[in-house]
């Protein structure tokens, strides 16, 4: 049996994993990154539109700072987020973007003088002053008060991923691709690394480390139609769940993106609407202002997705052989803008829909439909990124629920989170690896490895049993039909019931191809039962949460219920069970910097208030008033409202133009 030792083990080679690895390598730790695919192919590469950071450089970003970014993020989360984490995030994001600039990310820069932009379908001139020339530019995105999304055309994730991957190579991080962690090695509530399968040779080895960090992204592929890459199957989340010790947070919080291309599911960035594109119905009518007069097409993603479905239910969708869809019109931005700032979007439209979105009028409209896009839930962690229940296990990025997104994530905040969490959590993780030793017996490690080796042999030895593809496709259908944008008790109950049956069936899969090496069917055979566990956590969490919050919309419980549901769902899985164990972790209103309130969308009364909200609001108002009268600055006021811990180098004040 092969055992490989390192100080810091990172599972997942996207932006969060690689940036965490850089943090560990910088502290002198021997660091290994495991990745299903060459790391530069990670799903982070698909992030198009940009990364939120309150630099406040551009004209339309003036006045932006951490406080504004924080308020947008908390409201965006529908008060489901951990406000301390959101504070850590907004404070570090400007540093992250400046660090990336120094690593060579060619951020689109501000050009002095007059510029044309399309705002609310009207051509508008924006003037940039001389002193801003050459600083990092930003574009508009949904749910934000300022233009805050920094970008490189519409290939932001790609340029960021390459810069961070190259930085890892520079620091001699040991990157091993086509390696899959299939179980965590743990004993006495401490994690010691992972059992790892080589996807080429099929060899199973133990990777033992002082600390382990999971950054494997989301679990969109449990749904039938998703913008996620085919590797986003939630296996990293599942191996944490399967320890029976680590817990998952808010798995029912699943985001649907308003404008993937229909029917292929390939994402067209929110930057399309951020730059001035609009949604239209079958009559060519721009319908979003009818529903959301204030934010229109740039309301939060959950809101726009729901309004689109609502509008299609009214018969306003466009019928096609694949089903009903709506149109995204970016032709009004003009060919020049599209060919410079939305080039990948143009290419995607050309290749996958046979249209040129720069063509004027209906000819250039792209068929779109909301689809699964982002997993707000994930491995539940403390603000340091460490699991509350399994020591030495850290998680960062979309795989984690350190919880800055709550029940709805703002566009541009996830790609930002990957790097920011990589910096913050990566540092805490590295410190843990420095402070702790590996003290586990080889026989314990062997037990984990032998178990998986036996499991693989068993899978290929069975002559008859279930077809894994059929089970997988059925799971995706169920999730699509009953655990989608609009949910209700009956649908969710039938989903949970059938998913459980499917999970039981998945224990009896027979693999037709008998090779232990490079065998895609075998990979499906061991992944699908794990995916079903993840799916059950999502569906059961959604069934039990009898309210509507952020992206979780219950038609039978349309109100946000702060009285009963201002709490985080925790799911865990006991060995041998066929259903997750669900428990809850309350959010403490009395510690919030922004107590729960009206989010600014839809009807105002659609909320069951918690009496503590008003109480805390009074307290907050009082503190603010008192501090202001003493002429304290915004940093001191913030500290008085909600102190938060953060590494010194990241807590440092961000300098902006005009400071």
């Amino acid at each position: 049996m092969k055992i490989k030792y390192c100080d810091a083990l990172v599972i997942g080679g996207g932006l969060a994993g690689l940036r965490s690895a850089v943090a560990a390598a910088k502290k002198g730790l021997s660091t290994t990154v495991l990745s299903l695919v060459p790391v530069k192919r990670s799903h982070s590469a698909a992030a198009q539109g940009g990364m939120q950071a309150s630099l406040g450089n551009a004209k339309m970003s003036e006045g932006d700072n951490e406080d504004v970014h924080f308020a947008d993020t908390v409201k965006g989360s529908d008060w489901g987020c951990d406000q301390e984490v959101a504070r850590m995030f907004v404070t570090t994001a400007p540093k992250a973007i400046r660090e990336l600039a120094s690593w060579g990310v060619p951020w689109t820069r501000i050009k002095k003088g007059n510029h044309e932009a399309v705002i609310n379908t009207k051509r508008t001139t924006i003037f940039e002053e001389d002193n801003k020339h050459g600083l990092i530019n930003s574009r508009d995105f949904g749910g934000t008060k300022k233009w805050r999304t920094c970008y490189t055309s519409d290939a932001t994730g790609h340029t960021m991923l390459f810069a961070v991957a190259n930085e890892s190579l520079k620091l001699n991080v040991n990157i091993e691709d086509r390696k899959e962690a299939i179980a965590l090695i743990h004993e006495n509530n401490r994690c010691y690394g992972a059992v790892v399968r080589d996807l080429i040779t099929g060899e199973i080895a133990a990777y033992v480390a002082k600390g382990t960090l999971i950054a494997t992204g989301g679990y969109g592929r449990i749904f039938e139609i998703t913008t996620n890459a085919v590797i986003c199957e939630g296996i990293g989340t599942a191996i944490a769940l399967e320890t029976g010790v680590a817990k998952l947070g808010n798995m029912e919080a699943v985001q649907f993106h308003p404008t993937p291309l229909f029917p292929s599911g390939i994402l067209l960035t929110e930057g399309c609407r951020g730059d001035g594109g609009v949604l239209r119905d079958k009559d060519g009518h721009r319908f979003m202002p009818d529903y959301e007069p204030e934010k229109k097409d740039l309301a939060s993603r959950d809101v726009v997705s729901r309004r689109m479905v609502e509008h299609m239910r009214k018969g306003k969708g466009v019928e096609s052989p694949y089903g009903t869809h709506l149109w995204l019109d970016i032709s009004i931005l003009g060919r020049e803008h599209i060919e410079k700032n939305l080039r990948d979007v143009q290419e995607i439209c050309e290749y996958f829909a046979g249209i040129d979105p720069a063509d004027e009028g209906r000819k250039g409209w792209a068929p779109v439909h909301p689809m699964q896009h982002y997993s707000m839930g994930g491995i539940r962690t403390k603000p340091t990124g460490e699991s509350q229940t399994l020591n030495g296990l850290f998680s960062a990025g979309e795989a984690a629920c350190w919880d800055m997104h709550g029940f709805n994530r703002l566009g541009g905040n996830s790609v930002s989170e990957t790097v920011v969490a990589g910096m913050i959590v990566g540092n805490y993780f590295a410190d843990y690896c420095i402070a702790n030793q590996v003290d586990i017996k080889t026989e314990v490690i062997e037990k984990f490895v032998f178990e998986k080796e036996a499991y693989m042999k068993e899978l290929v030895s069975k002559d008859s049993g279930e077809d894994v593809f059929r089970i997988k496709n059925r799971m995706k259908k169920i999730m699509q039909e009953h655990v989608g944008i609009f949910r209700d008790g009956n649908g969710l109950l039938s989903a949970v019931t059938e998913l459980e049956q499917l999970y039981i069936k998945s224990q009896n899969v027979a693999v037709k191809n008998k090779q232990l090496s490079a065998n895609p069917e075998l990979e499906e055979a061991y992944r699908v039962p794990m995916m079903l566990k993840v799916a059950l956590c999502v569906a059961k969490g959604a069934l039990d949460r009898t309210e509507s919050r952020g992206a979780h919309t219950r038609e039978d419980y349309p109100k946000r219920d702060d009285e009963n549901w201002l709490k985080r769902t925790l799911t865990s899985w006991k060995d041998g069970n066929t259903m997750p164990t669900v428990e809850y972790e309350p959010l403490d209103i009395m510690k919030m910097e922004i107590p729960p309130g009206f989010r600014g969308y839809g009807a105002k009364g659609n909320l069951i208030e918690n009496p503590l909200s008003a109480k805390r609001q009074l307290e907050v108002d009082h503190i603010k008033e008192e501090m202001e009268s003493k002429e304290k600055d915004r940093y001191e006021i913030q500290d008085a409202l909600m102190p938060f811990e953060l590494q010194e180098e990241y807590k440092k004040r961000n300098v902006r133009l005009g400071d």
Partner: protein
Amino acid sequence: MARELTIRVLRYNPQDKNELRAYFQEYKIKEADSMTIYLALTQIRETMDAGLSFDFVCRAGICGSCAMMINGRPRLACRTLTKDLPQEIVLLPLPTFKLIKDLSVNTGEWMDAMSKRVESWIHSSKEIDISNIEEPIEPEVADAVFELDRCIECGCCVAGCGTKLIKEDFVGAVGLNRIARFECDPHDERDAEDYYELVGDDNGIFGCMTLLGCEDTCPKHLPLQNKIAYMRRKLATVKGS
């Protein structure tokens, strides 16, 4: 009427010691509207041949995983529509990369080695204070860097390169493009002499035979030939002049 496609795939599993030689396997499937090679191969795997190996990640033309030889040319399979191809489609793995199995090749190993060889990261002596305002960069310069930074390491240029086919250690257009990318990035302090040390030989900038295969096959339409020519002129002046 929907066509019946004949898809011929090169099969070979180097992991299997009993499999002595490569062979073609033929699959017949009904063409669907807007079918891509990605959709066709996925359907084949799920319904006809579960053991068929191939690579897709983003399936949107962004990540570069799925480059393969499609009727003789290196292309991204995810965005190649079957309707643009004849009824018979021949799929082979990319040449010059190590074969994993069937259509799956090990580009990661090669690309990481290439990145290390050209030291594909910013070389700077400056200490950056990340809480301070960033260094201003001319917008046109940032755009020019971005133009070259768009490479997705799919390997099409390497597979389409005559030089690489005869010269094992040739760094390929992907590597030379990386040099050009850092050369125009103001954050990077390296000069022509430094780049000469990295690629100033026959396996680097002077090995290119200008057959244009790289630029012809680049799915991102990078100006590879121009940039190679530019770097060659630049580096040719470094020594012996």
